[in-house]
């Protein structure tokens, strides 16, 4: 039997590994609403960010099917001026983890590894 972890616990564990992150959320792909979220920046509205990013995921799924690549999306990375935003879909695609970090204190490889470890066990 595979071990699954609740969204709230996933958020707490990611926060423990990356204490200086900007924001983290577990989002339901269908509705774009966060199941659990945490932000270290007071002005960062995670609900709005989750909603925007769900549209990005859906748009990308359309693009991949239009290209007939026969591939599934593993993760999506957005590079901003000094932040990295990563979205990683759960194995069945029903949820995704949204992670925003400062590129000055967390590099892309570290952020991807942390997300990978947590999406595989997301319930």
């Amino acid at each position, binding site marked *: 039997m595979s071990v699954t972890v609740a969204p709230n616990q996933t958020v707490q564990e990611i926060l423990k590994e990356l204490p200086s992150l*900007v*924001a983290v959320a577990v989002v339901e792909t269908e509705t774009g609403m966060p199941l659990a979220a945490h*932000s270290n*920046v007071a*002005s*960062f*509205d995670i609900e*709005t*960010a989750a909603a*925007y990013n769900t*549209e*990005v995921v859906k*748009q*990308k799924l*359309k*693009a*991949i099917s*239009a*290209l*007939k*690549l026969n*591939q*599934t*999306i*593993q*993760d*999506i*990375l*957005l*590079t*901003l*001026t*000094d*932040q990295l935003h990563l979205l990683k879909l759960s194995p069945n695609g029903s949820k995704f983890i949204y992670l925003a970090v400062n590129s000055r204190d967390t590099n*892309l490889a570290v952020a991807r590894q942390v997300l990978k470890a947590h999406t595989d066990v997301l319930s």
Partner: protein
Amino acid sequence: MRIPFLQKVAVRKITSDASGAAREQATALLESLLQELPELLLATVVDLPSGRLLAAYTKQAQSDPYKITASTVATARQLARIANQPGLAGQELQDIVLVLENQLYVLRLTANQPWSCLLLVNVHDTNLALAREVLRQHCS
């Protein structure tokens, strides 16, 4: 009789619908990308305000660059709104990368014109850092 390798048409040519300076610049951008990444699977340059495909290159006949232009434009417009989100003031989008099973899809906005440049590569011959860096160099 269907012979599989004869059904797979290899295209390998830069095509363009635009004219004048835009055509030259977009084609030159793709040519420079091809020089660095000759094995790339697909590359397109799209003018965002008009949503027009300026130049395209594809290695696989089944990947039609015209079909993804609309979704590329929609994604780029959506991403342009990211900076309006609360808490993201002063941030500008630089690129977006999609990690697929064994392909990488990189979309970047060019520095001077309101164009987007899309690159699709196979992870077997091009890694994530290389694909992003080559696109960054040629789009800035």
